[in-house]
């Protein structure tokens, strides 16, 4: 029993954090908002060079052969900077799906390119309705009628939708199954889809932790500097308690997320439950962070000019991604209310 991360994992987190915080500044984000694609090939190449795009690609295909647990802290950091490049979904959802889909030709064709940063793959699950970042994908892995297809970009037609978060790019995607490769159908597809959903939800949860932390940091700095009635507003107890309420809840959202990463990486039977718990807790704390942060920012928080909204909007937008709160509550309820459910002290691990 060891519920801590390894030195290596923590060091990797630190170096990724340093890189992201320096590169993905709010100014940079605003610049990217102004571009057509909203994405940066240069940035993607840098992420690839750090090994991130290939993190879960098997070593045989030029990746690092790491797993979801190795990545969860990095996904948290991606949330901290509101990274818009499709890294989290690529590492957590697309790559494992390609590796596990059972079609080795497709895997051999694409995984090396994903690792090297040459190609991007995205996944479109029915639960999400729209596909994130379809416009910059070379390969789309799409759920349709209970089956999963691999669709090359040229064979997919996209219809763009706009999100409240200018950093998110969402597309309705149409394709002709005849011009696509069917990777799985029936029960096999269902199993892959459920895993993809769990991994996507884990990614959302981890990013939500980072987003909450970022909003705390922005708010603490703002309220320590901003004065009203002759003192820093951060010295008012009401402002402190708004922040403390995020902070203490965040501590109890982190461990469920880490457990979920462990459970997915180790394919434990409790993974569905862990993931649903993780996503509910993390999205809720990110929501609270948004609510309390805008409040302590006052009117400044209501503007486009202050950076807070970048992170608030991402938190709001991610909330229903990879399963709504209702979906995940239902999964938890199904376990709790089952006959002979293993609950109570000693039943956690």
């Amino acid at each position, binding site marked *: 029993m060891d519920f801590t991360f390894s030195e290596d994992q923590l060091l990797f987190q630190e170096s990724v954090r340093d890189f992201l915080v320096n590169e993905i500044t709010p100014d940079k984000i605003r610049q990217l908002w102004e571009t057509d694609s909203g994405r940066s090939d240069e940035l993607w190449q840098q992420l690839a060079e750090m090994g991130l795009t290939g993190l879960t690609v098997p070593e045989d295909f030029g990746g690092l052969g790491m797993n979801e647990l190795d990545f969860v802290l990095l996904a948290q950091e991606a949330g901290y900077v509101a990274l818009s490049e499709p890294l989290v979904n690529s590492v957590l959802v697309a790559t494992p799906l390609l590796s596990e889909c059972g079609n080795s030709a497709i895997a051999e064709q694409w995984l090396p390119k994903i690792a090297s940063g040459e190609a991007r793959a995205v996944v479109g699950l029915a639960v999400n309705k729209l596909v994130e970042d379809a416009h910059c994908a070379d390969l789309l892995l799409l759920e349709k009628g209970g089956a999963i297809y691999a669709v090359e970009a040229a064979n997919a037609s996209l219809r763009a939708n706009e999100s409240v978060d200018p950093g998110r790019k969402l597309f309705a995607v149409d394709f002709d199954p005849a011009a696509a490769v069917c990777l799985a159908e029936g029960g096999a597809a269902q199993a892959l889809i459920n895993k993809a959903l769990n991994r996507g939800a884990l990614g959302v949860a981890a990013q939500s932790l980072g987003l909450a932390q970022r909003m705390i940091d922005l708010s603490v700095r703002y309220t320590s500097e901003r004065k009203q009635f002759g003192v820093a507003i951060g010295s008012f107890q009401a402002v402190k308690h708004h922040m403390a309420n995020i902070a203490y809840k965040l501590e109890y959202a982190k461990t469920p997320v880490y457990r979920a990463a462990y459970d997915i990486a180790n394919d434990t039977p409790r993974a569905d439950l862990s993931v649903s718990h993780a996503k509910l807790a993390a999205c809720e704390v990110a929501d609270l962070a948004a609510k309390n942060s805008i409040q302590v920012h006052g009117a400044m*928080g209501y503007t486009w000019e202050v950076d807070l909204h970048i992170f608030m909007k991402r938190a709001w937008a991610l909330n229903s991604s990879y399963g709504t709160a209702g979906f995940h509550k239902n999964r938890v309820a199904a376990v709790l209310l089952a006959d002979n459910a293993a609950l109570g002290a000693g039943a956690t691990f």
Partner: protein
Amino acid sequence: MKLEYTAEHQAFREEVRSWLKANVPAEPLKSFDTEEGFQQHREWEAKLYEGRWGMITWPEEMGGRGADLLQWLIFEEEYYAASAPLRVNQNGIFLLGPTLMEYGTEEQKKRFLNGMATGKDIWCQGWSEPNAGSDMAAIRSRADLSEDGSHYIINGQKTWSTRAVWADWCFGMFRTDPESERHRGLTFILVPLDSEGITVRPIPQLDGLPGFAEIFFDNVKVPVDCRLGGEGEGWSVAMATAGFERGLMLRSPARFQETAKRLVELYKANQETADEDPSIREAVLRAYMDAEAYCLTTYQTACRLMQGGKIGAEASTNKIFWSELDQQMHATALKILETRGELLPESPDAGDVGRWLDGWLFAQSGPIYAGTNEIQRNIIAERMLGMPRK
């Protein structure tokens, strides 16, 4: 107690309803945070004025109907039920208008009220300053009387001025006694926004539109007859305005009741998925009841005021209640909308999202503006409950 409308009230309601039915634009106007939408709304104000529906509580001689508060509430109910456009000149007609009637000279009333009523002059307010948000007494912008006493010379900066970008006039407080502190030495002045020396810098809000602005004053000359009330008496004039602002006029129960109604409809249309999350049904029931309660308490206050009562702590209790209700209702709607909740309504796959996202963004301002809800809680504790200040 008698909780029924009189036949007169019913007739009045019918009159409002049929006028609105005939006149409310079939196509919703564009947002008044856009230039085109602003113009559309200005025209709507003129149309309201033509029908004598612009400010029914104003006296008849000023284009109103001398309506009492109950009629006002009925009017608002019909107005929101008809989805009539938002009021682009609300700062003028609801805040400054009544203040002008109380503190303005006869000449000022003549000069300003008609332009306000017809939509010719759209007003914005100049209350906040960069370092005087919730703490209004920290105002530093100066208005110095010219030597000949004919005009003020204004220097400084106002901020968070809603709809200032395309407005015509600004009303606000300025420090006329440079030695003064806090709420002494302030004067209430009306400033034409096309004056020389004024720069209006739009501030984009959460949705990216310039819903408010900063106003910079660089030696702006304003004739002394633009002063409302006496020199140095700005605080008491402004407090009257703030009283109205926080009162019921701007936050019609009707607005929240219509939102609650739409929320119930949205829930009914999506009940199967919504019921996966038990907090949604709970929130929908609560939204309906809270909107009802807000209506009930407003009617009670209106009746009390009509019988000679005064507005007390209602200003603060209302503010917290409606702003939290509004946030809650929109948050619930977005939950019901699931993944399409994040989509802008023009998006091709947005489906039935309606204006919930816009409303959600707007609802974020509720607990903040016109005195944050933390300030309101302080006021309730100290003034209503008598708890120790320090």
